[in-house]
């Protein structure tokens, strides 16, 4: 609980900072595909949706941090090697998604966990699942209810980026937040 309050305080600070910056544009799935993303969400969850009143969207007057209108970069959480702890830098985004889910009980989200290519494949399924569960736990703390959240792990089977270097690996260790399922 103490940790939760710290996160909330951090959110406010970061929110102020975010307001002063340029608003982020929404990237649709097609563009992501052209950039080499393979594992993008299968349903068309991309464009539109800002008007649905994502808690942060209306607060900032720009595109949403959370909810279905969030930009692609605000719907992907990255992780460290062989690690499934959510880094503090994602608290703001996840709080926004959690609040959106809390404010929109009919909204559904699917958390797709992924791993980089190193090591064995089923263990990487385990890592992807752990990552998705970590994100799920944060969303639940923010007021989402468990019925709203499904998780799936694709392990290393659907990389966002093809490549065998640190950069590709870091982009593949991720959880994608997919609305509408």
């Amino acid at each position, binding site marked *: 609980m103490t940790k939760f309050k710290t996160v909330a305080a951090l959110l406010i600070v970061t929110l102020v900072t975010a307001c002063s910056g340029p608003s982020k544009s929404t990237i649709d799935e097609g563009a992501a*595909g052209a950039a080499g993303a*393979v594992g993008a969400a299968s349903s068309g969850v991309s464009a539109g949706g800002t008007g649905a009143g994502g808690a942060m969207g209306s607060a900032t007057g720009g595109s949403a941090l959370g909810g279905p209108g969030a930009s692609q970069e605000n719907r992907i959480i990255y992780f460290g090697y062989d690690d499934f702890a959510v880094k503090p830098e994602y608290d703001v985004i996840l709080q926004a998604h959690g609040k959106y889910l809390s404010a929109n009980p009919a909204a559904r989200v699917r958390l797709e966990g992924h791993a980089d290519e190193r*090591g064995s*494949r089923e*263990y990487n399924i385990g890592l992807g699942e752990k990552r998705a569960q970590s994100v799920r736990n944060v969303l639940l703390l923010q007021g989402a209810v468990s019925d709203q959240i499904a998780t799936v792990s694709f392990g290393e089977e659907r990389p966002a980026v093809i490549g065998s270097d640190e950069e590709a690996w870091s982009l593949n260790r991720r959880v994608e937040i997919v609305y509408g399922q």
Partner: protein
Amino acid sequence: MHKLVPVFAAVLILISSPGQAELQIQITEGVDKALPIAVVPFGWQGPGAAPPLDVAGVVAADLARSGRFAPLDRKDLLQRPTTGADVDFGDWRIQATDFLIIGRVVQSVPDQYEIQFQVFDVLRGEQLLSYRQPATAADFRRSCHRVADVIYEKLTGIRGVFSTRIAYVTVSRSQSQGQVNSTYRLVVADADGQNVRIMVESRQPIMSPAWSPDGRKVAYVSFEANRSEIYVQDLRSGSRKRVSARPGVNGAPAWSPDGQRLAVSLSRQDGNLDLYTLDLNTQVLTRLTSGSAIDTEPTWSLDGEQIYFTSDAAGGPQVYRVAAEGGSARRMTFEGSYNARPRMAPDGKQLAVVHNDRGNYRIALIDLARSSTQVLSDGRLDESPSFAPNGEMLIYATREGTRGVLATVSTNGRIRTRIPELDGDVREPAWSPFAED
């Protein structure tokens, strides 16, 4: 004997093999003292010009691929006897050939063949073996591999694996309108990479093929429903059954030695991967492990009493052992930061694992009695080791540039082959058990 039939299902398209490139196996490292052997083109007694297949060619290629034999080039053969009476040992001694194989294919009635052959010890000038292998047109290649198995066993004392098969997964990617489309295939081929059959094709990942102990079925994980589910598919009929589609992860199927149960890794409602056994007859699920660790990648001891598996209970992945009925788990690997995906050796005394060797992911053998680790492969991202059923070799997945390819290494580390495919990523090889027929 096992004709593989394509499967048709709502989301899966079974296609025939013509478009699929066959695997070509290259020996990248052999033993210094491969035995010189001559395999003379077989004679033919039947209608038409020739038997359905060049028996001697298939047999010589099999023997060469084992790394233990060096077949004489066909153009260097001084004589081409097809019966024992025509053999002149003097000529073969001049060519420094240790062993000689001759034979003939006889067709008695349509579609019934007999491959008759003899094995000679050239130095001693004596016949070691005379054998008749029946064949039909449909299984002629397989019968040729059986001939090679018989010869290999006679000359080495070790049962041959040329007539076994391998299952593996391929991925091909194509781009259209800015989208990358992936096609995943579960493939079964002869051990020499020929006779490729596609069992399942899907736009979603296919993983973790595992042979049933009788070699008739393959269990695997499919994401065709956009989540992981475990299927068991009969290779002969192509029919399949979904055996686990519980909430969360359904993964890592491993057959019990009696073929009655699957060990699996499930996350169920709580999102935490634990090991279970699933009785395939009763569907009864028995939980083996609990706790917050990732427990996955089970493999059974030969007696079916123990299960070895990967767990990150101590931080990174290490191999543990638990009784097949459940209980407390015991850590088995201590050398290195990463030991995962154990596979039990056919002798029950060693495990093959994926081992982090100074930043490289390599195939290693763990000796269970001495608890020692021997690194066998030399790649950077090697994975998915699978033992040949005679325990002489491991097949595993490695990289060639950005592409996944298959490779083999002998368990003594001395013979290496590489199996590059013409297109697509190849991964997760699983060597079949010995066929029962």
